[in-house]
C-alpha cells in the first residue's frame, strides 16, 4: 500500500515533467500542468513520509530489472529515508505552489517546458535518491539530481555569470561524486553487494582502517555537496544563479540529501566509528558555521547572503551530527540520540525557513527586478505579506524563540553541553563548551545578518525607483510562503511533533528512540541518565512560552492603552533639522562594517578608493569606493590548483605537435620497450 504511494510520487513527477515538456508550445498551460503534478506528488510524499514515520515500518521493492549481481533492493524506505522524503515533500509542496506565480515572469523569455521538465526531474531524483536501496541507484539519482539542478542553475544561460556559476557547480559536484563513488566501491568490495541493507550487516565488522577510509571519502564527497568549508565555493555562486524557486529547493532540500547520504553511510552502514570522527565532523561543522555566517554578513546580494547562510546551517547540522558520532564512538546511545535528533530536526527546520527565505528573495526579485539589497528599502509597506513572511523566516533562521530554529539549536547546545559534562575525556570536556561558544557566536552573527537583511530591504524608505514601484506578488506565491511560515511557527511551538516523527529514525540508527529521552509532551526534556538526579530537569516548554508571550503582549497592550492620555501623531524622522533622503540611510555595506572590521583578519577585506580632485587636494570632484571580501579559498586553493592543472595539460599538448616523424617515433619506442620489457 505505502509502496504504491511511493510509486505515485515518482509517477506524478515523471508525468508532470513529460507533460510540461510536451506542452512547451503553450507556456502558461505547461507551467500550470508541470507544477500541479509537482504539488500532487508533494502531497502524496508528505502522506507517505508521515505514514512510515508514525508506523515505523520499512517498505522496500525488489531489484526489478536491475541486472548487476549483488543488487536485491531497488528502493528501500526506512524511517530515515521517510524522514527525508517528508522534508523534500513539505518544501516542494510550498515551493511548487509558489512557482505558479513566480514562473510567470519567464513566459515569453525562456522555455517553460524545459523548466517544468527539469524541475520535476530534479524532485524525482531527490525523492528516489533518498529511497534508493542500493549504491547504484543512489549514485544514479545523485548524478541525475546534480544534472537536473545544473540544468536549472543555467536556466537563464544568456548571462555569462550564470554559465560560469553552473560550470563551477557541476565540476565541484562531480568531483564530490568521485569520492562517494570510491567509498561505495570499497563497501561493495567488502560486502560483495550493492545493497545498503546488506552492507549494513558487514559494515560494523569492517577493519577500522577500512572504515576510516570510507568515512573520510564520504566526508569529502558529501561535504562537497553539502557545502562545508572549504568545499563550498560552488554554493554561493550556484544558488543565486538559479531561479529563486529552484534556489529554495537546492538550498532547502538538495543540500540535505548530502546529509542523508552521510548519515546513511556513516551511521547506518558503518554504524559509527571512533570518537575522532565525531571531533572532525564537529570541527568542520563549527568552521563552516562560523565562516559561513561571516561571509554571509559581507554580501549585499540577497541570494548570495542566503546561500552563505546555507553553509552556516549545514555547519550547525554537522555540529549535532559530530556530537552524535562522538557519543556513538564512546558507546553512549542516549547522548548520541540527542545530537542526532538535533541534527535531523535542524535539517527539517533549515529546509523550511531557508526555502521560505529564498522564496521571499524570489518574490522581491519578482517585484523589484533586482537582488541588490542596496537598491531596496521600504518594501514592507508595499509588500506587506511578503515582508511578514520574510520576517518569520528571518526570526526562525536567527534561532529566536518561539520559532523552530531555536528548538533545534537548543538541542544542539544541549548535546555540546553534555559533551562538556559527560565522563569522556578532558579534551572533550573543554572542547564541547568551546564549540558551544562558537555556536553562540554563529547564532548572534546570524541575528545580526538578518537584522541587516530584513531591515535594509523592508524598512525605511525605498532606495531606488524599482523598489519604490514594487507591488505585492500574486496570491499563489504568498500561499507558498505562508505554508512554510506557518510550519516554522508550528514546529517552534510544538517541537514534540517532530520529535515523535524522529523516534523511529533514532531508534534505528543509534538504538534509542527520541521520545523515550526527550519526552512526548509539549516541551523538550532531555533526561540524561549520566547526570545526577535533579529537582529541575533541563527542559524548555515552547508552547507554554508562546502562550505566556501572547498573553503578556495582550496584557501589556491593554494596560499601556489605559495608562496616560497622549495621542499619536505622524511626523518626519528627526534628521538634525535637514530633510531626510533615502541616500542618508544606512546601507547594507555600512551595516556590516563593524563586523567586517572586527573580523578583518579572517575576512581579509580589501578596499579601493579612487578620488578625483578638481583644484587642489582639498577639492574633491568625485569619490569612488569599492569594497570586497577576498575570496580566500579560491585564491589559496582552487585557483592555483586549476592553474597547475591547465598548465600541465598545456605542456602535454606538445606531445601532439603535428610531426609525423614524432608519431612514428612513439610507435617505435613503444614497440622497442615492449620487446625488451615484455618478452
Amino acid at each position, binding site marked *: 500500500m505505502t509502496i504504491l504511494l511511493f510509486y505515485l510520487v515518482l509517477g506524478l513527477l515523471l508525468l508532470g515533467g513529460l507533460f510540461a515538456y510536451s506542452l512547451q508550445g503553450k507556456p502558461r498551460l505547461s507551467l500550470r500542468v508541470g507544477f500541479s503534478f509537482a504539488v500532487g506528488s508533494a502531497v502524496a510524499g508528505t502522506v507517505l513520509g508521515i505514514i512510515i514515520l508514525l508506523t515505523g515500518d520499512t517498505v522496500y521493492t525488489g531489484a526489478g530489472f536491475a541486472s548487476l549481481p549483488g543488487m536485491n533492493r531497488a528502493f528501500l524506505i526506512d524511517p530515515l529515508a521517510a524522514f527525508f522524503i517528508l522534508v523534500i515533500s513539505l518544501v516542494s509542496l510550498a515551493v511548487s505552489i509558489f512557482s505558479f506565480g513566480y514562473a510567470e515572469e519567464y513566459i515569453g523569455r525562456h522555455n517553460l517546458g524545459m523548466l517544468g521538465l527539469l524541475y520535476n526531474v530534479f524532485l524525482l531524483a531527490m525523492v528516489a535518491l533518498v529511497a534508493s536501496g542500493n549504491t547504484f541507484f543512489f549514485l544514479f539519482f545523485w548524478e541525475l539530481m546534480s544534472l537536473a539542478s545544473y540544468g536549472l542553475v543555467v536556466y537563464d544561460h544568456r548571462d555569462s555569470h550564470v554559465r560560469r556559476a553552473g560550470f563551477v557547480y557541476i565540476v565541484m559536484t562531480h568531483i564530490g561524486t568521485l569520492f562517494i563513488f570510491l567509498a561505495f566501491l570499497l563497501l561493495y568490495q567488502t560486502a560483495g553487494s550493492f545493497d545498503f541493507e546488506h552492507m549494513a550487516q558487514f559494515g560494523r565488522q569492517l577493519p577500522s582502517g577500512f572504515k576510516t577510509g570510507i568515512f573520510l571519502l564520504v566526508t569529502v564527497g558529501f561535504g562537497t555537496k553539502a557545502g562545508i568549508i572549504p568545499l563550498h565555493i560552488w554554493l554561493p555562486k550556484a544558488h543565486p544563479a538559479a531561479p529563486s524557486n529552484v534556489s529554495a529547493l537546492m538550498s532547502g532540500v538538495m543540500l540535505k540529501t548530502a546529509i542523508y547520504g552521510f548519515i546513511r553511510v556513516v551511521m547506518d552502514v558503518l554504524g559509527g566509528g571512533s570518537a575522532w570522527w565525531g571531533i572532525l565532523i564537529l570541527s568542520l561543522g563549527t568552521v563552516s558555521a562560523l565562516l559561513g555566517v561571516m561571509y554571509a554578513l559581507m554580501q549585499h546580494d540577497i541570494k548570495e547572503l542566503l546561500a552563505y547562510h546555507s553553509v552556516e546551517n549545514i555547519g550547525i547540522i554537522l555540529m549535532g551530527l559530530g556530537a552524535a558520532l562522538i557519543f556513538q564512538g564512546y558507546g553512549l546511545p542516549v547522548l548520541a540520540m540527542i545530537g542526532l535528533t538535533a541534527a535531523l530536526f535542524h535539517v527539517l527546520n533549515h529546509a523550511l525557513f531557508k526555502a521560505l527565505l529564498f522564496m521571499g528573495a524570489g518574490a522581491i526579485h519578482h517585484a523589484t527586478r533586482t537582488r541588490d539589497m542596496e537598491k531596496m528599502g521600504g518594501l514592507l509597506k508595499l509588500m506587506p505579506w511578503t515582508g511578514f513572511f520574510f520576517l518569520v523566516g528571518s526570526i526562525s533562521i536567527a534561532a529566536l524563540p518561539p520559532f523552530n530554529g531555536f528548538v533545534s539549536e537548543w538541542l544542539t547546545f544541549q548535546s555540546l553541553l553534555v559533551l562538556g559534562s559527560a565522563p569522556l575525556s578532558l579534551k572533550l570536556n573543554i572542547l564541547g563548551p568551546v564549540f558551544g561558544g562558537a555556536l553562540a557566536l554563529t547564532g548572534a552573527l546570524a*541575528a545580526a545578518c538578518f537584522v541587516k537583511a530584513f531591515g535594509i530591504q523592508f524598512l525605511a524608505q525605498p532606495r531606488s525607483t524599482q523598489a519604490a514601484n514594487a507591488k505585492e506578488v500574486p496570491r499563489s506565491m504568498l500561499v507558498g510562503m505562508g505554508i512554510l511560515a506557518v510550519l516554522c511557527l508550528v514546529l517552534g511551538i510544538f517541537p514534540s511533533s517532530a520529535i515523535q516523527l524522529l523516534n523511529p529514525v533514532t531508534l534505528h540508527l543509534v538504538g534509542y528512540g527520541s521520545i523515550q529521552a526527550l519526552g512526548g509532551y509539549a516541551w523538550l526534556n532531555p533526561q540524561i541518565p549520566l547526570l545526577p538526579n535533579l529537582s529541575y530537569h533541563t527542559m524548555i516548554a515552547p508552547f507554554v512560552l508562546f502562550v*505566556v*508571550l501572547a498573553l503578556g503582549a495582550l496584557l*501589556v497592550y491593554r494596560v499601556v492603552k489605559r495608562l496616560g492620555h*497622549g495621542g499619536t501623531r505622524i511626523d518626519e524622522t528627526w534628521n538634525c533639522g535637514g530633510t531626510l533622503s533615502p541616500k542618508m540611510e544606512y546601507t547594507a555595506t555600512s551595516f556590516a562594517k563593524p563586523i567586517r572590521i572586527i573580523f578583518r583578519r579572517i575576512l581579509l577585506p580589501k578596499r579601493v578608493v579612487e578620488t578625483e580632485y578638481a583644484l587642489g587636494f582639498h577639492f574633491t570632484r568625485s569619490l569612488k569606493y569599492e569594497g570586497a571580501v577576498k575570496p580566500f579559498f579560491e585564491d589559496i586553493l582552487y585557483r592555483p590548483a586549476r592553474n597547475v592543472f591547465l598548465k600541465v595539460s598545456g605542456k602535454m599538448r606538445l606531445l601532439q605537435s603535428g610531426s609525423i616523424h614524432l608519431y612514428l617515433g612513439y610507435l617505435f619506442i613503444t614497440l622497442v620497450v615492449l620487446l625488451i620489457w615484455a618478452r
Partner: protein
Amino acid sequence: MLAVGLTIFQMLFVLAFAPLLSGIINKIKAYFQSRRGPSVLQPYRDISKYLQKETVLSEHTSWIFRITPYVYFVAILVVTLTLPILTTFGVLSFTGDLFMVIYLFALARFFLALAGLDAGSAFGGMASSREMAVSAIAEPALMLPLFTMAIAAGTSNLSGMVEQMAHGGWPALTPAHLMTFVALFVVGIAETGRIPVDNPDTHLELTMIHEGMLLEYSGKQLALLTLGVHIKQLLIFALLANIFFPWGIASPATGFQVPTLLSATLAFAAKAIGLGVVMAVIETSMAKMRLFKVPDLLMGSFLLGLLGLISHVLLRG
C-alpha cells in the same frame, strides 16, 4: 498555587525595583563625580512623564516600529517570570532555561535593532549596526561562563543551577568560580550598555549605541522601552548575583514563609545594589572605549571564561 503567587510576587518586585536600581546607580555615580545628581526616584518620574506625552511616529516607519516596544517589553517580562530572582520555585521555573533566557534577550534586541533601522535616519542604522556587532562578539563570552556553571550544575535550567549552587553542589570562591564570575561580569557591562562599552547617559550621536536605537521613540512607547531597559539591567544583575552567589534565595529547601521571602528580597536587593556600586565605580573611573577596542575587551573576557572552564574541568578531575 504557591508557585503562581511566588512568580507574581517576583514580577511585581522586579517591576518596582528595576527603576530604583537605575536611580541608585546614577546617584552613586553622581556622588563619585562630586555632584548631587538626580533623585533615586528620577527613573519613575521619567517613565510617568513619558506616559503622559503624545506619541510621535515617523512617517517612514512601518508596523515593526510600532510593535517593537511591546515585543521588547514582553520578552523581558517573560524572562522575569522564568528567572530565579527571589525564588527558584516559580510557576514557569521549569522552562527557565539558560538558552531560552539568552535567546529571549536576543529576540528583544533583534526587534529593537530593526526598529532602529525603520525610521531611515542614519543614527538609528548606525546604532543598530553597532549593537548587533557588539552583542555578537559578546555572545561567546557570555555563554562560556554560563556553560561552565551549567556543566557544574548538571543542568542548563537556571533555577536548577541556582539550587545546586545554593546547596553546595559546587565549591564557591574557588579560582575557577571567581574567574568565571569576572568573565561574566565584563560581559554584563556590555549587555547593560555601560562604560567602557557604551555610555547610557549620552545622546552624542557618534558614541551612542543603545540610545541611538531609541532616538525616534516618544511617549508611551518610550516609556515601555525605558522600563524594559531598566528591567533588563536588573535581570542581568540577577543572573550575575544568583548564579554565583545564590545565598539567601528562597527555594523549596528553605521554605516559603513570609520572613524567608522578605529576607530573600532584601538579600537580593543588597546583592544588586552591591553590583550597582561596582558598576558605578567602574563607570566613573574609566573612559569609554573606542568601538573597535571593545572586541579586545570581550576577547579577554572570553579567555578568562575559558580559563575558568579549564580549571573547573581539571579540578573536577
